[in-house]
């Protein structure tokens, strides 16, 4: 490791009042995506006691439907494609409508299953949490290199379920602590 490395600044909680600074980006971004590929993902953020976390902020980063990441500004309003921010409601719930990402190639013949990287911010989180959400019934789940790093019993915490009567609606809860604690990644 280089001796010249600078130490990244310390993280601090977003606190309970982040909406005044971060709300502007909520629900913004491209709105002209094809409805055919659009899904809705909804769920709740819950704490150790199953109590709703009503002041969480979630950020999603995803590939497009072909599995490519937009690494630049790609919309006229200055908002990046593939990034979504949503705050939870009083009952801890969130809901987002977005393009379902495609499988992403790793460049060596392998693929990642369709997924989104998710950042969780809240009062009581001194550092944000990093997790991923995948989509149930996708045949590539079994070969996803990140899921394979996780024990089978905990893997399900990263997989959004869908309603058979409406396959365009997925449900996914984030449990911060406790029996069904969501898998979070180190950083």
């Amino acid at each position, binding site marked *: 490791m280089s001796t010249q*490395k*600078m130490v990244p600044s*310390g993280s*601090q909680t977003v606190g*309970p009042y982040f909406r005044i600074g971060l709300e502007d980006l909520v629900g913004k971004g491209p709105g002209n995506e094809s409805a055919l590929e659009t899904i809705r993902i909804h769920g709740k953020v819950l704490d150790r*006691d199953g109590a709703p976390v009503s002041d969480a902020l979630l950020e999603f980063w995803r590939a497009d439907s072909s599995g490519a990441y937009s690494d630049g500004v790609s919309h006229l309003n200055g908002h990046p494609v593939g990034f979504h921010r949503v705050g939870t409601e009083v009952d801890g719930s969130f809901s987002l409508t977005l393009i379902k990402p495609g499988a992403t190639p790793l460049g060596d013949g392998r693929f990642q299953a369709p997924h989104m990287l998710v950042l969780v911010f809240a009062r009581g*989180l001194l550092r944000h949490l990093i997790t991923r959400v995948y989509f149930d019934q996708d045949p590539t789940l079994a070969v996803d290199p990140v899921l394979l*790093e996780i024990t089978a019993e905990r893997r399900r915490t990263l997989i959004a379920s869908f309603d058979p009567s409406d396959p365009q609606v997925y449900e996914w809860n984030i449990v911060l602590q406790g029996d069904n604690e969501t898998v979070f990644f*180190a950083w």
Partner: protein
Amino acid sequence: MLIELPAVQTAIPGTQPDFYFPPYVSTIARSPRMPLVLLPETPTERTGPVFGHEMIRKNDHDLTAQHEGEALGERIVVHGRVRDEDGRPVRGALIEVWQANAAGRYRHKVDGHDAPLDPNFSGAGRFLTDDEGRYFFKTIKPGPYPWGNHYNAWRPAHIHFSLFGAGILSRLVTQMYFPGDPLQPFDPIFNSIPDEGARQRLVSKLDMARSQPDYALAYAFDIVLRGSHDTSFEGAKR
């Protein structure tokens, strides 16, 4: 199955807060207890959103001038530089800031502190860093305020910062503090960072050279974001 993707680099011990820090009571039921999983670095982690100038509005960088009248309180200028771990400037980084007003009150419906709101102060701003990673904004020095963490708990004066750097993993939300604030030793959020040096780097410095005589004092606050990895580390699992 053996995974050969390089793992995401984790923080130097002591320089980031732990998730579970009981003096800050809200961490108790909200911090994960299972071991965090080392994430392999894939295209998902190596990419991230880029924001354009189109989303920045007039006066987003001047929190004293977002309304008809001037905001009340001590006008200050805050500036600094955003760099990555290798010391390179982070260009075009979106910074969002929010804060209490001079009386220690947020313009937010859940802030029940009995202190006046200022009709001329919203307390939120955003801007992009320039080609040298520099940013600048004008605001009102926020007041300290009480909170319910423990008996007679007061937050030291602070401004919230949210940053997007190169790649989603460089994301940072932090708080900027002010030099010489006597409340800092009592604040569990500030003191959640174990390393003294890392903690002090969240305290801005009075910058007389950039202060504007007869108008506003200046504070300097530099930020370091996690960088994308040196490729020479690829394969070195941490």
